[in-house]
């Protein structure tokens, strides 16, 4: 099994899709010569040329909107929005156009568009380059939402996103790009809507996404020293959500913590909590705990930033709270 970084895994999926399929092309800000602000698309211009690896103006509405139009006309565009904070600029095209064309047309149109983006705190970018806005999109019927946390997952899920016939918002986390992990020799597509159990346990289920998957695994190791057995599950696809797998896990463990870097209030953890309490109500031995960022625009100074966003300690504290209830 080869080892790839998360960054290389994304690049590998992009390169393979571009190589195998003339309808695939990528576009976004600084993705060509520069190779993307996160260096994900490095080398792709040389291999595929400027017609299929397209630098764009700083123009998020047009980037997403032209992706929509090309997708409707039978292409499989992959557009990159440099920071997910900038998705807010293209919201009209995403929410009113991409998500709704199929229904508004009575099924005449499909929009096989992938929107790759990234974000996340941990490097003092301040309030406009570090948000985690995935929950905004989970509220919109017609979109699919993916948030991958490992090299293997990011490659297999991106492939499925590219070949899905619906608009998919594909979230990557900035701090995960350098992490390494084994990936299969051959790219194995990972179906959208399937959760992954990273660690089995019997006392508490932590449902985590993005960077918090890794923080939760650290917390689980600490908890184990205290005699608490923690199961860590990553839904990977937030929309559609593998409700069955999450509910089954919580029925087994009887306690649940949700964990993401996004702000807790109105975050995806709120939806997870609702789904799990409804599906596993009679099994729950404690209220579901939500871990997320505190309710503030992200401050710049490292001390403040670190205090606002959650870490393994916060997950561990939440695990302890659920166990203390019984």
């Amino acid at each position, binding site marked *: 099994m080869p080892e790839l970084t998360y960054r290389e895994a994304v690049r590998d999926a992009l390169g393979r899709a571009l190589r195998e399929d003339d309808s695939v092309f990528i576009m976004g800000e600084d993705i060509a010569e520069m190779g993307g602000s996160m260096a994900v698309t490095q080398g792709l211009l040389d291999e595929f040329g400027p017609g299929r690896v397209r630098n764009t103006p700083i123009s998020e509405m047009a980037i997403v909107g*032209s992706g929509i*139009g090309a997708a409707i006309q039978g292409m499989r565009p992959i557009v990159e929005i440099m920071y997910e904070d900038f998705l807010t600029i293209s919201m*009209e095209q995403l929410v009113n156009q991409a998500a709704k064309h199929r229904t508004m047309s009575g099924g005449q149109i499909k929009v096989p568009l992938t929107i790759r983006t990234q974000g996340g705190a941990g490097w003092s970018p301040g309030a406009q380059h570090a948000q985690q806005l995935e929950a905004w999109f989970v509220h919109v019927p017609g979109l699919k939402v993916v948030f991958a946390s490992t090299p293997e997952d990011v490659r297999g899920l991106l492939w499925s996103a590219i070949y899905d016939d619906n608009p998919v918002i594909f979230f990557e986390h900035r701090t995960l790009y350098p992490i390494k992990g084994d990936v299969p020799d051959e790219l194995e597509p990972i179906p959208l809507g399937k959760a992954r159990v990273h660690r089995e346990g019997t006392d508490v289920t932590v449902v985590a996404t993005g960077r918090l998957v890794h923080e939760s695994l650290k917390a689980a190791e600490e908890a184990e020293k205290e005699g608490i057995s923690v199961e860590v599950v990553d839904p990977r696809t937030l929309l559609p959500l593998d409700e069955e797998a999450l509910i089954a896990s919580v029925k087994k463990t009887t306690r649940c913590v949700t964990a993401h870097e996004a702000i807790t209030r109105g975050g995806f953890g709120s939806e997870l909590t609702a789904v799990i309490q409804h599906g596993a109500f009679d099994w729950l031995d404690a209220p579901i705990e939500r871990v997320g960022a505190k309710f503030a625009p992200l401050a710049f100074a490292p001390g403040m930033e670190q205090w606002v966003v959650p870490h393994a300690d916060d997950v561990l504290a939440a695990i302890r709270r659920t166990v203390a209830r019984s």
Partner: protein
Amino acid sequence: MTTVEERAESGGRGVSEEVLRGFFREMLLIRRFEEKVEDRFRAGELPGFLHVAIGQEATATGVCAALQREDVIASTHRAHGHAIAKGTPVERIMAELYGKVEGCSGGYGGSMHLYDVEVGNLGANAVVGGGLPGIVGAALAFQMRGEQRVAVAFFGDGATNTGTFHESLNLGQLWKVPAIFCLENNGWAESTPASQQLPLPVDELGKRAAAFGMKLIEADGQDVEAVYLATLAAREHAVTGKGPVLLHLRTHRLTGHFVGDPQVYRDKDALKQERETKDPIKLLAARLELSDDEHAAIDAEVTAEVEASVEFAKAGTDPAPEDALKYVYA
């Protein structure tokens, strides 16, 4: 022999009377259709709300007549004329307005979301400026595949103040995609007149093309022949790799923003005068020197077609409520 572009720019003529009579018939069909829509809406038969384009028939007919079937359009909230002119049968549009399965969007869209992909209508858009970026992308797909097709975005003067207008013209021109940005300039952003929403004189709105280095072609939007020739020229420019065109058509909305709009914001005498002097159907009838009998015969024909569309729509099938979830995902 002059090119279509030169003919268009010189205001020259050259369209046969037979073709013009075809335009007249279609424009009158659009007019009678929209009058019927107003009538049925007031009678309480049509859900939602509606915008008619009475006075703007020449832009719909002239533009779409100059396109090929495989060319695509994105329309606006004032969409009935575009849909008819691009080739969707009126009974399917009427059925859509009645919310029926037989409608051109299966009852999922309504007046502001008329789609008919088979004839190249990629959908009417209820967000002002919302359709422009998609047209850049459709044109990009044609360019990448080497197809001799153009993509056309209809929009009004109000949309030229939106971000999507500027981003779309910018990107379209940068990549020289085969797109036509068709500005139907009626001088009104809903109830707000040009003087309160445009920093340029209303007739000079085409100057915005220069900001992008884009080809500008202009025509009197009440003169269907001029619109047709201008669009032929625009299509030729776009499809031959010279880049997109801003097609500026000055037109006149001879009714309110929506059906039932009392137009308290509009000078009544000026409107009356516009109706007398700017009606594209009256102008074309005069040009063709149609006799009363000829006019009445065409009118009877299109009126019957519209009546039949209402019967078709009323006899249509109501969608099952739970089918509302049917097309959320492909």
